[in-house]
C-alpha cells in the first residue's frame, strides 16, 4: 500500500512537472499561446494584398487601412505585401507568445528612398478608469515633426519610424503635425480624434505632404481599465494630536 502510494505521488509529481514544462501549451484560452499581428497599409495610392507565411490574410487593403488582428504562432513570421501579384515588400517579424504588434508598410522620411516596413509593439497595459493609452507613430515622408494636441506640443521632434505614448483622459482631441519647432504649415490636420476609455489607440501618420497624400491610420485595441473609482471622501485624522498645530500655523496660511 505504501509502495503504491509512493508511486502515485511520484507520478502525480511527474505530471505536475510536465504541466509546468508545458506552461503555455496547456494554459486556458489561446491568447497567451499565440501572438497577434495587425497590418497597417501606409503606402499612398496603392491597394495591397497581405500574406503571412505565404498564406493570404487580406486582399485589397486600401491606404490608411488597418487589418487584423491575425493570430500567429510565436517565432519568425514573414509578412508579404503584394500589388496585383507583384511583391512590393517582404519582411520577417519576430513575435513571442502573448505579444501584440503592428506591422506597418510606409514611406521613409526621404522621398527618394524606397518604402519600408516597421514593426511596433503594442502596450496592452490597462490605463486607469476614464483614460486611454494614445500612441502616435511617425511613418510619413516628412522630416522630424512635432505632434500637437489641442494646440500644445505633446509629442516633440518625432522622426520617421518613431512613436510616442501618452495616457490621456477619454475625449475628443484636435491633433495636428507641424515641422519640429514651428507653428506651421501643418503637415497634417488639424483633425479630430476621439479616444475611448479602456483602450490603446494607435495613430499612424502616413503619406507624403509634397504629393498631398498625408493621411492617418487609426486602430483601437481594448485593454480594460485599472485602478479604483474617484473618491468622495478622504478621512485621514482620527487621533486629534495634530489639532494643536492647526490654529497657529493655519492663520494666514490658507489662501
Amino acid at each position, binding site marked *: 500500500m505504501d509502495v503504491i502510494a509512493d508511486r*502515485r505521488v511520484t*507520478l502525480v509529481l511527474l*505530471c505536475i512537472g*510536465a*504541466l509546468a*514544462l508545458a506552461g503555455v*501549451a*496547456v494554459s486556458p484560452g489561446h491568447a497567451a499561446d499565440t501572438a497577434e499581428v495587425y497590418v497597417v497599409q501606409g503606402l499612398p495610392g496603392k491597394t495591397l494584398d497581405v500574406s503571412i*507565411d*505565404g498564406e493570404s490574410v487580406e486582399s485589397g487593403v486600401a491606404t490608411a487601412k488597418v487589418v487584423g488582428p491575425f493570430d500567429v504562432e*510565436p*517565432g*519568425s513570421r*514573414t*509578412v508579404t505585401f503584394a500589388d496585383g501579384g507583384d511583391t512590393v515588400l517582404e*519582411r*520577417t*517579424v519576430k513575435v513571442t507568445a502573448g505579444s501584440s504588434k503592428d*506591422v*506597418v508598410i510606409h514611406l521613409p522620411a526621404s522621398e527618394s528612398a524606397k518604402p*519600408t*516596413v*516597421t*514593426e511596433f*509593439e503594442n502596450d496592452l497595459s490597462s490605463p*486607469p478608469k476614464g483614460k486611454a493609452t494614445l500612441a502616435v507613430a511617425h511613418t510619413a515622408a516628412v522630416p522630424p515633426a512635432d505632434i500637437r*494636441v489641442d494646440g500644445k506640443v505633446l*509629442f*516633440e*521632434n518625432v522622426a520617421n519610424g*518613431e*512613436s*510616442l*505614448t501618452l*495616457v*490621456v*483622459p477619454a475625449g475628443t482631441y484636435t491633433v495636428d503635425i507641424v515641422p519640429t519647432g514651428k507653428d506651421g504649415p501643418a503637415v497634417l490636420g488639424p483633425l479630430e480624434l476621439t479616444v475611448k476609455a479602456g483602450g490603446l489607440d494607435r495613430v499612424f501618420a502616413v503619406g507624403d505632404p509634397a504629393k498631398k497624400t498625408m493621411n492617418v491610420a487609426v486602430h483601437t485595441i481594448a485593454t480594460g481599465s485599472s*485602478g*479604483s*473609482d*474617484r*473618491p*468622495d*471622501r*478622504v*478621512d*485621514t*485624522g*482620527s*487621533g*486629534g*494630536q*495634530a*489639532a494643536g498645530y*492647526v490654529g497657529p*500655523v*493655519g492663520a494666514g*496660511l*490658507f*489662501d
Partner: protein
Amino acid sequence: MRVASPSVRASIAVLLAVLVSGLVAGCASGQTADGGTDAPAANEGRPAASTRVTFVPEQVTLPGGDSADVHSASTVDGELVVPEDVDHLGWWDGSASVGEAFGSTVIAGHVDSATGGVGYFARLLSIRKGERVTVRADEHRLTYRVVSVRSVSQDALATTSAAFDQKGEHRLVLITCTGTFRPGRGYDKNLVVIGEPLGLAR
C-alpha cells in the same frame, strides 16, 4: 470521496503525463518552425527621444527633507483608503502617474491617528506656496512647486476642490485632514496642497 482505485488513478496520471509531454513537443516544434523565408527583418519602431518618463510614486520628500514611502491606495465605498501607518502615504490608484501630461497625481496621508500619533503629513500644515515637493520611484524623480494650499470642508472635497481632476494639466495633489477635531468623528476639513511640475520627470 469517490472511488477510482489507486492503479486506475496511476494509469490516468501516466496517460496525462504522456499527453502533456506530447503537447510540450507539439508546442516546441511550433515555436521553432519559422516563416520559411530569408526576407530581411522589419525595422523596429523606436520610442522618440521626447517620450515622457512617467512613474507610480514610491516616495515623497517635503520641505525640510523628510521623506515618506508611498503605497497604492484604492477607493472603497467612496473613501480613499490610505495606509494605517501614519508615516506612510497612499497614491490613489485611479489618478495620474507622476510625469503624465494630464491629470492629478493624488497622494493622501494621515495627519494623525488614535493609535499612531502625529503623522508624516502633519508637515503639510506648515507648507507654504513656492516651496518644493519631490516625488521619486527608483531612479526617477519629479519636483513640484507648491502653488496652492487650501482647506476645504470634507463634504466639499470631491465636488468643489478639483483635487481629483484627471482632465486638466498635470498636478501633484497632496491631501490630509485639518480644521476642527471632533472626537469620534475626526476632522471637519481636508487640507489640499497643489503643486505644478518643474519640467518633466526624469
